[in-house]
Every structure is written in C-alpha cells, then in structure tokens.
C-alpha cells in the first residue's frame, strides 16, 4: 500500500505521541486519558479550564461553538486556526481573534480531530468534576512523595564472612588434629606443654621474614584501602536543602518541556547559570496559578515576591511591593574554586545532565544527583561520560577532564584551530597527548592544572 507524504507525517507524529505517552506513563506510574496529557502538554500554557487567560477558558468551549452553530468548526479551529480564519467560513473564529486583540493561537497541525475531541472531552469532564466540588485528582501539585529507589543487591555479602569463618575453623581444627597426631606419634610430652598460642608464636618466629612481609602487605593494603575510602567520602551527594518554594523540575522541564536555558538563562554566557528572576517566573505564572490548593499556595509565593495581585481587575496587576525569594543553594562550591558554566556548556558542549542528572524527572526540590544515577543516563545518551568519583568532588571534576575529548583542529573553532596548529609544530608532544586514549582530552590542554580552577 502506498501512503502519501502527509499521511506519513501523520503516522510519524502518531508514533511520536505514542512514544511520548508511553514515556509519560512510565514516569508517572499513573493511568490517565490521552486528553489530559494533550491538554497539559499543548494547551495548558495558554488556556485554563475554568478561567480566561492568554486564551479563553476551555470549559464550555464546545458548547459555545455549538451555540454559534459552528459545532464542527471548533476542531478545525484548534488544528489550524489561521486557515479557518482565512477561509472566512467561521464567524466565531473572527470573533475570538478580535476579542483577544488579534493575537493568534498557535497552529497545531499535528493533532488529529480525534485527539482534539479527546482534549475537549477531558476539559469538560474536568469542569464537571470541578463543579461537583469533588476534585480528586491524584496530582498533588508541586511535590510528589519520594519514590524510594530500590536498595541494591547487598544480600550476598554476608556469605563471604560465613565462608571466611568456616575456613578459619577448618584450618584451626586441621592444625589441632595435626598437633595431636604429632604428639601421639613422637611421644614428646614437651610439645604438649606448649599452649596453642605459644605454638603459633613459635611458628611465626620461625617464618619471621614471611610474617613481616605479609604484615607489611596487610598494613599497606589497609592504608591504601582506607585512603580510597576517604576519597569516596562526599558530603554533597544527595544534598537536598529545603526550599522556600516546592519547585518541581519535572513539571517545568519534563512535562511542559521548558528548556533549562529559559530559566537558567546565563548558563551559556556567564560563570553562573543564574537562578530565574521572579519576572521570568511571572512570564508564565501570570496565567498559571495552580489547580490544587497546594499548587496555588506555592504559586502565591511567587506572586508575593513579584508583588502581583491576581484580584486586581480585570486580569491582575502589580502592587509594586516586591520581595526577593531566598533560595537555599544546592550546588555549593568552596570559595577557592572557580567554575564557569559557559565554559562547559557553550564551549565544551556538555549537557546539563552530565553534572545535574535528569532534572526532567526530579519531582522534588533540586538536589545534588549522585554519580551513580548520572551514570545510568549513559544508556539513553552515549555522550554522558561515566564517572566513578562522587559528584561535586574534585576527583569527579578531574576524572571528567581526563576523559572528555576536546575537538581541536576541526575548523569549527578558530581558537582551537590555532591551538592545534601550534601543537602540530611539536609532533612528539602531540603523540604523547594521544597516547593511551587516542584523543586530546581537556586535561592535556591544561584541564588538570591547578590555576584553571583555583585562583
């Protein structure tokens, strides 16, 4: 069967949606209708169910179009409002357009009529629920209870201790039997007078060289092991301070797909990624004020900070009384460490995930993601470099600097081209750099030098 290109696109889009749904269902662990997902993903940033915002409220939208005798046109309107307006077959379309100061609605040509109907059905169902005063959405707004990750398989560890004890017991009993036999066979009573411990001492003394060496080895290995233990100590990993606002990253970056850089907008420009200033929050939250009580309570904190009063007619207004939000810093570096986000993001092309983990799934306030969790992301994205040292320790930084390949001399960055051409003058050094990993890593360009981060 031949399929047209348009159909192809539609199929691909459907597949994409399916994948998206599967994905969302997987993380939410919750069954919901397609209409809800579509509403939240596509409509919710401009439309609310029971209140006018950037666009009109969706409650009763179907009825309103039906009242205007354009019942079927609403689907066309949602999918491509521009085309509908241009066709001039709908009066209501022009009306709405004029009502909202001629700011056009986004075109959703990838939605099917069926999906649009599902959205509208969902909206009406929600509105009815709301009217009945029985809001039983399981969505608890900002913060979901923690889903404890399963403990690792640690059960088999004790077996080794049991075996070790058994082994010692066997050795001792074999030794005892041997001694008894020796005494019995030689008839030497002297031997019997020695206690067990004295005999061991005697034995150790007899083989004192071996004993000394093995004790030394043991001590050294304990020291080495101890040091390695100390290196793996980290006070930052999993650090999750309380925050004045229960901000869920998964809602913003995950569900609504807001780019990290929209809020952390100096990440490619400056050493600091920047926390969103309250005016950035207000870009969206002027419209979105929360569905549940808890959400409303959290969002009202933003309003307090911005000095926004939603009750000012007609659509809210600023009072002028502002008050900054005091967050607790999550990723805290000591004063003697210099870290520049733009170097890593804009120049190094490092994904935020590499250091911060997948924030689209962080349904609680932000925390320092443990390196083990970040390493798992490698399965989805092979650009993620797997590291062993705990997050935010110096070992972690330099481990990555030692692994990260720097593209030099590919003609894309004049700076690195120059570095490359200079390096080419010293072939021996170049070869030394390539040794082992066949790549130029950040460390070879000075990424392991003290004054790159400490000054």
């Amino acid at each position, binding site marked *: 069967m031949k399929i047209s290109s348009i159909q192809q696109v539609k199929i691909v889009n459907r597949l994409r949606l399916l994948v998206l749904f599967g994905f969302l269902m997987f993380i939410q662990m919750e069954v919901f209708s397609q209409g809800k997902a579509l509403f939240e993903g596509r409509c919710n940033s401009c439309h609310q169910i029971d209140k006018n915002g950037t666009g009109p409220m969706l409650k009763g939208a179907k009825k309103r179009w039906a009242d205007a005798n354009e019942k079927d046109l609403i689907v066309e309107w949602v999918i491509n409002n521009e085309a509908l307006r241009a066709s001039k077959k709908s009066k209501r379309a022009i009306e709405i357009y004029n009502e909202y100061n001629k700011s056009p609605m986004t075109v959703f040509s990838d939605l099917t009529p069926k999906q649009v109907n599902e959205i509208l059905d969902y909206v009406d169902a929600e509105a009815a629920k709301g009217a009945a005063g029985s809001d039983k959405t399981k969505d608890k707004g900002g913060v979901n209870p923690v889903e404890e990750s399963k403990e690792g398989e640690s059960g088999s560890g004790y077996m080794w201790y049991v075996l070790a004890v058994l082994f010692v017991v066997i050795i001792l009993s074999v030794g005892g039997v041997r001694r008894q036999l020796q005494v019995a066979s030689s008839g030497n009573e002297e031997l019997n007078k020695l206690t067990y411990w004295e005999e061991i001492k005697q034995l150790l003394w007899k083989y004192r060289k071996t004993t000394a060496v093995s004790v030394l080895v043991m001590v050294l290995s304990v020291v080495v092991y101890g040091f390695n233990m100390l290196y793996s100590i980290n006070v930052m990993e999993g650090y999750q301070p309380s925050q004045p606002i229960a901000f869920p990253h998964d809602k913003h970056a995950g569900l609504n797909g807001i780019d990290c850089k929209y809020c952390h907008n100096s990440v490619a420009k*400056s050493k600091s990624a*920047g926390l969103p200033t*309250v005016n950035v929050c207000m870009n969206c939250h002027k419209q979105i004020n929360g569905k549940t009580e808890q959400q409303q309570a959290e969002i009202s904190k933003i309003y307090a900070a911005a000095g926004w009063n939603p009750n000012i007619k007609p659509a809210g207004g600023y009072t002028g009384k502002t008050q900054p939000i005091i967050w607790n810093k999550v990723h805290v570096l000591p004063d003697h460490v210099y870290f520049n986000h733009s170097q890593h993001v804009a120049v190094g092309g490092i994904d935020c995930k590499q250091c911060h983990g997948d924030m689209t799934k962080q349904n609680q306030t932000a925390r320092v993601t443990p390196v083990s969790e970040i390493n798992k992301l490698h399965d989805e994205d092979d650009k993620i470099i797997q590291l062993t040292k705990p997050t935010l320790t110096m070992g972690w930084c330099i481990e990555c600097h030692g692994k990260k390949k720097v593209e030099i001399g590919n003609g894309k960055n004049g700076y690195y081209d120059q570095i490359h051409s200079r390096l080419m003058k010293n072939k021996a050094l170049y070869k030394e750099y390539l040794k082992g990993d066949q790549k130029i890593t950040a460390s070879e360009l000075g990424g392991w030098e003290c*004054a790159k981060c400490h*000054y």
Partner: protein
Amino acid sequence: MEVKKRYWKGLEELKETPSYLQNKDSEFPSETSIEQFLSNDQLSESSTGRRDFLKFLGFSVAAATLAACEAPITKAVPYVNKPENVTPGQATWYASSYYDGSSYASVLVKTREGRPIFIKGNKDFGFTNGSVNPQIIASVLSLYDGDRLNAPRVQGKTASVSEADKAITAALRKATSIAVLTPTVISPSMKKALGEFSAAFGAEESSRVSIVQYDAISYAAIAGANEKNFGKAFIPSYDFSKAKVVVGIAADFLSTWLMANEYAPQYAQLRNPDAEMSKHYQFESILSITGSNADVRVQLKPSEITSLLSNILTSLGGQSSVNSKISPALQKAATAVVGDLKKAIGGSLLVCGTNVLEDQLLTNAINEKLQNYGKSISLVSELNLFRSEDVKANQLFDSIINGKGPDVLINLGANPVYSHPKGAELKKGLKAMKVYVSTASYADESSAVATHHVPDHHLLEGWNDYMPKTSHYAIAQPTIRPLGNTYSALESILVWGGLKARPAKTAESTVAYDYIMENAMASNFVSSKEDFNATVHNSCKEIKSEATPLTFTAVSIEGKNIPTPSGLEVVFYQKTAIRDGSMSSNPWLQELPDPISKVTWDNYITMNPVEMDQQGYNTTYDQEHGLSMATITVDGKTVTLPVYPQPGQALGTVGIALGYGRGASGEAIGKGAYQTKEYGGYDLDSNGKKKGIGQNVFGLLPVVDGRRLFSAGAKMAKVEGLYSIAATQIHHTVMGRDSIVRETTRSIYPVGEGEARKNKNQYNPAHTLQRLNEHGHHEEAPVSEFDLWNAHPVENVGHRWGMTIDLSTCIGCGSCLVACQAENNVPVVGKDEVRRGREMHWLRIDRYYASDQESQVGKKKDEHSFNYTLAEKASVNPTVVHMPLMCHHCNHAPCETVCPVAATTHSNEGLNQMTYNRCIGTRYCANNCPYKVRRFNWFNYPSYKKFTEVNPAQDDLGRMVLNPDVTVRTRGVMEKCSFCVQRIQSVKLDAKKSAQPVKDGDLKTACSEVCPTNAIIVGDWNDEKSEIRKSSKSARSYQALEEVGVKPNIWYKVKVRNQG
C-alpha cells in the same frame, strides 16, 4: 662613554649596618611567636594544662570531623526584576568621568552585580588617553567607606531631608548675605545652577550671593601671570608630547602638578629610546618622581628659583630686572639648558611649580621667547581645573573668623579648616555661625561643625557633567545606586534656590539628570537626546568652541617682594598617594609606598643624609630602630616629625609632605585615617583622642599677596626620641647581584638599529658560562643554553604568557600597585606589619639609587678595591631607576621544586600557579625565590582585630569592593602575583566562545592596564606577531638575574638616559 655605576638599594646596604647584615639573608625579617601567629591573645592569657590540652585537642578533632560532614547552607537570592544589562557573574563596564577637585580623567568603571569594583582609564575617549593615577584607582574603595555620611543632619542629629531643606530655605530667604564655598567647579550645570541660585536670591542686591572657589592646592600664580600676559586669568593646556626639551622647575608634572595624569603619557611618547628621545632637565629641592626620571637633575633651593628663571630668560635674550645671579653649579646647568633650548625653538616646554607670581611671569616670558605658545602650550584650550580664588577665599575666611561672615554659608565640599593656614581660627568662626550648610561627604574638619548637613553622593553614585577643558564636554554617570540617603549637590542647590522640588522618592531622583541633559541641549553641547545618550555612552565629546587664540603681551618683571630666607628652607610637597589629603582615609593609598622614599602610613622631614650625618641625625633605620625626631618652625608655628634620610634632597633644604594629619579632632573621616596600636585599636593620646597619621603642615604655608606659597624659611631643631617608620625599602635584599637593573646613556645606545646592536655588550651584555666543546676546548656559551632540568613545553605550544617592562618609560608612579591591590584582593596590613616587612603587595616597585663608581654595571671587575664608603659621596644627588617587580613566572621556577606538597606548580602556558588550598605554609618557596616576590599570609586579615581599622575587608560595606573572581586568601598560605590568571582565563573563554584565536592586546593585566606610559606589555609570547614577542626580542631586552638560569617569562628593557 660608558657610565660606571654601582647600585645600592638603601643606605643600610651602603653602610652595611649590623642589622642589615644580619637580616639580608633572611627572607622574613623576624620570627613570629606562636601566640601571635595564632592571632588570639586569649590563648596566652589562659593557662591550659597538658591533659586539658589533649582533651581539647581530641574534642576539637572529633568536632571538626563531624562538622565537616555537614554541608554549609548557602543562600542564593535572584533579582525580582533583573536589570537588563546585568548578567550574574559577568562584569558590566560603564564609561564615566572622574573629578574630585585635584584629578580628572575619563574612566571605565567595572561593576559586578551592580557593585563598582575597579576603575581604569578610558583609552578610547577623552584627552587623558586612558591615564589615571593611584587616587583615581583607589577611589572605588572610598565609595564603600562606612564613615561617609549616609543621612542628612541638622544640628548634628540625623534628620530627614525635608526637615533640612525646610530649615535651609527658610534661612536663605531671611539672609542678607549668602556665600557658597566650593572646590573648583568644572561642571557647566553646576555653574548654571549656581548662577540661577544667585539670581533667585540676589535679584535686587547683586552682592547678596557670593560664590568662592577654593582648593587646597593653589595654582593662582599661573592664572595671575597669564592675566598680566594675556589679559585673561587662565591655566593653559600643556602638551608634553610636543616638547623635545622639557625643563621642570620644582614642578612634579608626572605625579602631582596640574593634570599630571594627562602629561605622563605625553611625556612618555618622547621617552622611547628606540625613537627620538626628549631631553629632560629637572631643577628641584625634594627628590620628586619627575626628578627621578630626568636626564639631568639639578638640586636647588626654592629661593634660587626666581634668579634661575631670570638667568635663563636673559640668556635667551629676554628682559628681566630680577637678580639673575646664581651659584656656579646652577650656572653650569643653566648654560646647558639654554644651549639645548635654543636648539629646540618651538619644540620645548619650561614649567615652574611655584605659586610665586614673578616666577610664573618669567616662565611665561621664557616660553614666549622659545615660541612655545600655540605649540606645547595651547592658547585655545584652557584647563578649567585648579581655579582656586585665593584672594576672595581669604576675604571670606577672614570675615567668618571675625564673626562678620555671611548669614548663610553653603560649603560644597571644600575643607579649608584642614587645608588653609588659618584653619584653626576658621573652625571657631564656622562654629559660631548660625546657619552653616554643608554637602561634604564626611563630617570632616570643616563640615563637622555644620548646622545643616545634606551629604552629596560619592562620585560613582550620581550624575555629573564636567568641562575640564574648553571644548571638552564630559559626563559622569552613576554606576551604583546611592548607598545611603545622600543627595546630589546639584539637586540640593536647585532645591534650596527654589528652582526645583525635591522628589518624593529620593533614591530615584532624576532632578540632576534632567537638569544636566536640559543644560547640555540648551548650551548646544549635544544636538539631541540621542546625542546626549551617545555622550553618556562614550563619557565625553569634543564640542565646537569659538575661542580665538590669545596674544602675548610682555610685561616688565620686577623683583619679588618675598623675603629671601638665608638659612634652612622647607619645601611643602604633595605625595603621589595622598596628595592634598582629601583621600587620606583610604588604606590602599596610605599603604602605597611612596615611590621615592618607600615609606608608608606617614609623613616626615626629608633631608639629605650628608647633612643629617653632620647634624647628628640617625641615617639608618630598620624595624627595631627608628628615626630621630626634629621640629620645624616656620613663622612661629612648629611641627615635630621624624627626619628621613633622602638622598638627592638639595642641601640646605628639607621637605615635608602635605596631606597628612587629617582628623586632628577625631572627626569621622574614615577608619583608615588614624594611627593604630600594635595589636589593633586606635592609638589614643593623653586626652583620649585618636591620633591622625603624620602632621598637618598646611598651617605652615606662608601667604603672600593672598597666595599660599609652598616653601618657606624655617628653623630646625633636634628633639629627643626615636620614631619607628614603616618603609618597604630594604626588606628584600639585593643579594649583591648587579644584573638586576641595566641602565645606559644615549651616547652608547643611539638612534638607529644596526649601530645600536653592534655594541650590545656595552649596554646589554649577555651572561655566559664556560663549557667544553666537542674538541675539548673551553668556550663561552649563553646562560640560556644550559639546562639542569627538562624544559616545560611552553614555547610554541598553546599559549605562553609573558610580559616586558620598559625601564625607560616606567616613571614609578605606583598606579600598577594600587590596581593590583584592587584586582587581586590584596589585603591591607597596616603600618606595624609593614614595618616588620610583612606587606602583602604582589607587585612592588624597587627604587634603586645609583652613584658613579669604578665598578661596571653587572660585573664587579674591581671587587677588591670596591668599597661602600666611597659610594656614599655620590649619593648627594643620585640618579634613580624604578623597577616594578612581581612574580617572574620562571619556566625553571626554583619555588616549584622545593614545595613539599606541590602547591606551586607550572602550567603549560608558562604560568607559575599558586594553589592556596594546597599550601601548608612551609615558606620554602619564598626562601628559594631569587626575586623575593612571594608573600606569606601571616594573619587572618579579614577577621583578626589587629586589622579592624586598616583592612577594608573587615566591614560589610568594605567587603563589597572585593573582586569575586579572586579568592580571599586565608592565614598560613603563600600568595604572589598570578599574572592576573582570572583575566587570562576570561580572555581565553571569550575567544573560545567567539570561535576566534586570542587577539593580541585582548589580555591586559591590572598593572599593564593602568600604566600611564604603557611601560608594561603583556601578551601571548607564542603569537609570533604579538607586541610582547617583538618587545622581548628588542636589543634592549634582558632578564633580571638571567645568570641564575630560572628562565623567567618577564623581560626588562634597559633604561636609557638621554645624556652625552
């Protein structure tokens, strides 16, 4: 002829005093006791038994371990509404203009998250060509001075501005006479506002409002002489870049005289030995910075100046009825000067720094004879600064002293109580005034007694406009919101004159801004709003002026009516850092070693050591042994000060710096303005009052014809007692190595490349060592070919950051030092620590006195017959070399090899990196450093009580000046010049982000950025076309202590003196 010189760094070395010999081998002058080091006196007060000690130890180790497991909570507070131009973590620069009454410059202000933290010159706009001086750089610290008034006061009590305004306007309405006292006004808006203010009150009686300009330092004689010669009292613009022969007579034009920061780069243009050089003669009594740079420096007494000028004028064929007889030595120098001047008609400049009318008339006549007017002296562009109306001011002060003063006095920031000879009487007069309004930033000597005080903004907080010269219009824009409730003086004048209303939201007031813009449009300084905005962006613009050049009219010059002193003469001079004392509470400036004497935190009597020996004064001193004290009496007024041995001081004269002894009655003029005790706290006198730093000698200035003179006849008497002084002079020994400084003369290093190179071993000999060649014979090879270690791969790979410093153009001004302190959060340590040799400056400027000797520079050929006593005779008038010295970032760094914890390592970009968090403070590195540029952090400067008064990082406000990109070092670690690695990293990052190689000239270290003469060049040596590469390959380039073989990344360039 080759000059044979022997360099010594201090008289102590010259004489080899026992303490010098004892200390010269040790990097740090003395041991610190444990108690001191732990900086906790309570430790010694309590007696702890051994067992208790062990218990405490055990507990604290356990506690520390537990505490380390808890992450500290840090707050992050984003803006509510982010200002458009602010990106957190990125600096924002603003072009602005600086004027504080004694310096003017077009500047760029660096702000981080809204806080100004660094000021440098604007090289793109303005006639100052990016040149600044130490005070301008340090002014950013004064912004954060907690003693700056932060609210209006009425009768000494904090009040609201409306309350103050009400009282002031009421008083003004009632007053029959109003006086406005102000430092020289160069603001066209302020001038207009004062005009409107006068009109508002004096419509009927024109004499009701009088406006008097008064500056601490007066140049009235120059304006006075010009009035006679040109019919107009003005100060011209000088252009030293047009002067092939420069003659300075008691004028420190590279440091403190008029627009010194404008003149220094002009002067330096003709001081490059690789092109044509100017010839500079300097006649002076004190050894000034300008004198130290002169090709020929001649000592003279102030009383000889008039005769010298007259002598030069008559030798040039001019007319003068003044006595032209001068001493034979002076005559010889004058003949040489006249000879050179005659060869450079129309291309020379003679400037005189005295405030004597006759001297300035003679100077004018000489410059007219030399046809310098219209060339090196502009008759079109006038300097609007320094227009102190001394006669009018004296009348006003006399009237106030006699109680006949105006009904209302408005003081716009002048401080005559401190800086006028009649200051003490004036203070009584001011106290008796019913209505005395001040807008000064501090409740200083003059303003503490004000009845109404509405403090002005700091320069960086408000809008201002300036017209420093005819046809040059400049704007100063705020770089931070006012920190306190301060009010633009311009706004206040407009409000009090009833011309504008004080806005309700004072912090967002646009009164001054609107007025300046309206005035700029009305006066045709700008053509439109867009033009005004462009001017704000550039900070200044040239405007058209219709001024016609003035013409010179000769006047007969009569003998002066100043009594010529017969005995000792005292010269009152300004120091580079403190100048007229207006910024004396700034600890950066107090700790800036005087470029010549290297003394910090004090003023003193400078006297030639030859005379001191004869009169029984101590000529040597160190941290334990102080200087002798003496009194200087001028006209019955006496000050007591230590006597400092200053080689080069003219015999029969002594010098004392102005600008010290501020806050004599304990006024709140800033924490840093008072003497502190050894372990912190202020040193109080018997009355429990704080002691000012040094002595105020403004009171000693004689007044002739209403003009204050800066020299006088004096009597000097020795006083019992010693005074310890904090100098950085000999704390770092030279270790008997003469290859540090290289100097030659024009005859050996003439113009023209080929010839100059031929005799390189005469002016810049290479260091060689013997080695065996392949035939088994000895041969000489350059030191650079010998290597003990494998070289770091820095040459031609990646970057190699390097620096050249031209000793010929370095004038020793000290700007680099203050800029380094500001950029790198270098702590202030106070006088007591400097005295102990623990100053923290990363960059120092070594000043070497030279004297003719039979020893060759760099080589001790006749070591057996050489002796220090012979060298002493030459020290009467030694020539001087300034040599900035910071970490040399040696590619074979001796410090790196001795660090037991690898806290100091080498980068592949040629930098010697100091890692504070790794350092355990063994100080081996400092011990091993041949340049002695490493500094050890002995104390917790930001918290130990010893430094509360001097270290700005100890209060919340002062901390705001810290550069957030540089770590504040803690106690117990080494630190040193990092080559501004934060800037290197930032320049590299910008290049990477723009996908371009690092452009030559993009990297400027703090020191190179503020150098007025561009003596310091930095860059990537691996860039073959870079300035630094070229400069390091110059025939004059050499490396200090090259024979040590440490392969530094800093090159010096041989100093060439334009002598025969």
